[in-house]
């Protein structure tokens, strides 16, 4: 009995999917606009998914948000303005990549710093521990050494 109601409820959900289907089929898409839409949509996080952009998400809200992106771009707004619109509604959280300024620079800078410092360390280790000249095969060299 309980199960039956649940299945009925599930099918009601099924109906919700229909909402996204437009009455008339969309006209032949403007491919340049589509490309710009995709580029912006790929940077916005889907609010009802986890860590997926609204470009990639099959969720209904993501498709609708993509529609908003498309409309705003078509109306002449710049990609930055479109992103700013979504930030004003959802907060910085909506950006899949934190803006590279202020405190967020830390996320970009720390790995770069590690590589720079690491290269220095490697240089020191190599210089300090290397044989001066191409050395004859030492005792430590195993069977792998080329002939």
């Amino acid at each position, binding site marked *: 009995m309980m199960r039956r109601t649940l299945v009925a409820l599930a099918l009601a959900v*099924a109906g919700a999917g229909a909402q996204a289907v437009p009455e008339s089929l969309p006209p032949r898409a403007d491919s340049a606009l589509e490309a710009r839409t995709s580029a912006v949509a790929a940077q916005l996080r889907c609010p009802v998914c986890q860590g997926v952009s609204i470009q990639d998400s099959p969720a209904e809200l993501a498709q609708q948000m993509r529609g908003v992106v498309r409309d705003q771009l078509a109306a002449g707004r710049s990609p930055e303005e479109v992103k700013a619109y979504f930030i004003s509604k959802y907060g910085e959280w909506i950006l899949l990549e934190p803006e590279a300024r202020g405190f967020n620079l830390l*996320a970009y800078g720390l790995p770069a710093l590690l590589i720079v410092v690491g290269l220095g360390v490697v240089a020191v280790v190599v210089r300090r521990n*290397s044989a001066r000249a191409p050395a004859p095969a030492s005792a430590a060299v195993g069977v792998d050494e080329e002939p």
Partner: protein
Amino acid sequence: MTRLIGLDALWLSLAVSLFGVLLVPAAIIRRRPEWLAWTRSAVYTNFALLTLAAGAMVYGLVAHDFSISYVAQVGSRATPLLFTVISLWGALEGSILFWAWVLAFYAAAVLWVNRDREGTLVPYASAVILAVAVFFGILLVGPANPFHLVSPVPPDGPGPNPLLQNHILMAVHPPLLYLGYVGLTVPFAFAVAAMLNGEVLQDHWVVLARRWTLVAWALLSAAIIAGMWWSYEVLGWGGYWAWDPVENASFMPWLTATAYLHSVMVQERRGLLRLWTLNLVVATFVLTILGTFLTRSGIVSSVHAFTQGTIGWYFLAFIGVVLVAALVLVAGNSDRLKSEGQLGGVISRDTVFLLNNLLLTAFTFTVLVGTLFPLVAEAARGVKVSVGEPFFNRMTLPICVALLFLMGVGPALPWRGVSNDEARSRLLPPAVGAALALVIALMSGVRMPYALLAWVSAGYAIAAVLREYQRGVGGRMRARGERWLVALVRLVRGNRRRYGGFLSHIGVFVVALAIATSSALRREHEQTLRPGESMSLAGFEIRLDKVSGREEPQRAVIGAAVTILRGGAVLRRMEPRMNFYPTQQSPVPTPDVRSTPAGDLYLTLMAFRPDGTTATIKAIHEPLVPWIWIGGMIVILGALVALWPTPARATEAAA
């Protein structure tokens, strides 16, 4: 009854593990080294008890014993048998139970393989593994107890998470993941044991740790590939990697384990990097626990995060103990681990290995920073930020390309240092491969800069590795007059580690090229169709035939029947679906994929009218995707070649 057997087995297992751990200090303090033999009994008994507990749970699931809390949570009479069995790892408590069982299995396996080895190393290592088992034992009788009594007994349960009962890979990916993940406890245990008994400068713990790392690494590689495959086949967006925290959690220890497998070669060969290599072993284990903490505690949001609860605090306490103990032990032993060897030369494979380790470490660090940064930003600025795919791609793609390039430079150079002239004569020829790869990529239409760089680097590296095989085979053919196939087999057999490693590298190149090309040439198109209408993508005609629904015992399914045509000829019929589960608010899509070696056609049903008059279908064309899975299998094959014991090694290991 089943419930009580399982619960009692858990309590006994906790007691036995604790006993096994305490034996070591007791034996040292009372100077009774013969007591250490008892760790063996503790390990085997613990394995038997956890097998009993896990068996009781599987029995409870299959028998629909809803008096067991875990069964009531994930079981359902409507779920097919296979998915009922594998729901053992479908939710938090069961996954911890499975983890504990795998850990007990490893402890028993390590003892069994090394049963003839004398000394304190193996007993100490067993005790370390048992100490980790104590932690999981505490979880299992405490916050993650799967054997609570449910009263009154419900007649049925909700069934497992729909995402986890949608695909057969759910029966493969999690066990592989646990086998790989938990297996990394073993090298850590040997490292700690060697630091405790003062044998850290000797070689046998290094050999043991390396072999067990390779076992775990191969399993973890397989798990990561299977996980990518699963998300590709199930999640419906045509991608295989989203940099979700749970993916990062499995990837970070893989990276450090990879770095370790390389740095340990420098250590064994040169006597250098001892402290560094030890750090990598410890870091790898800490990252497995940290990853589990991040994804199980709900501290970062993740697709697969299990429900939150007090368990995060237990994990935090455990991380505290592990981190402090590891740091104290490593730092305390650091004086002893002074390097004494000498590198081959400035231009040598040694240098390439150092750079490889730097890059892999930077890679790990980048992933860690990206995973934790939302939390850091919230702590520092009080603002929630997201760190997703664009960040990780931007930060890690240069590292990936550099690593691919080094994978060509390394094999091209000998261990010993070479003069500039010789370096040139070794490094230049593979450039032909790079040029060839560039031409192929450009002709296939690849324009994305990183994809082109990946092709060039991988082309260079493939040429360098093939040249190594060719030099070895050619040398044998000339010196011993062998036919090339015989020479190849004997060459590989003569040095499995080396040529198995190269084979793994070839697998990595295949994966890298497939990923680069599939993302560069990905085309997608979404359209709402009426039955009979079609849309076209990448030369395929995609015709909607019918939208229909049906009910299955555990779910309702809506499918869009689609025919794929090319040049008017029918290639295949496909059916992307949407599944509606009674317990799930939003539908779970099941995409349909047509795979060929050249690429995949990936269809997702995005929306439909309940009366079946229209369906919105998203079609994605992704070249070369199947080669990701094939490349992954080559990587694992290479690891197996390297692991296969040669008769000489087998005797050495037993000695």
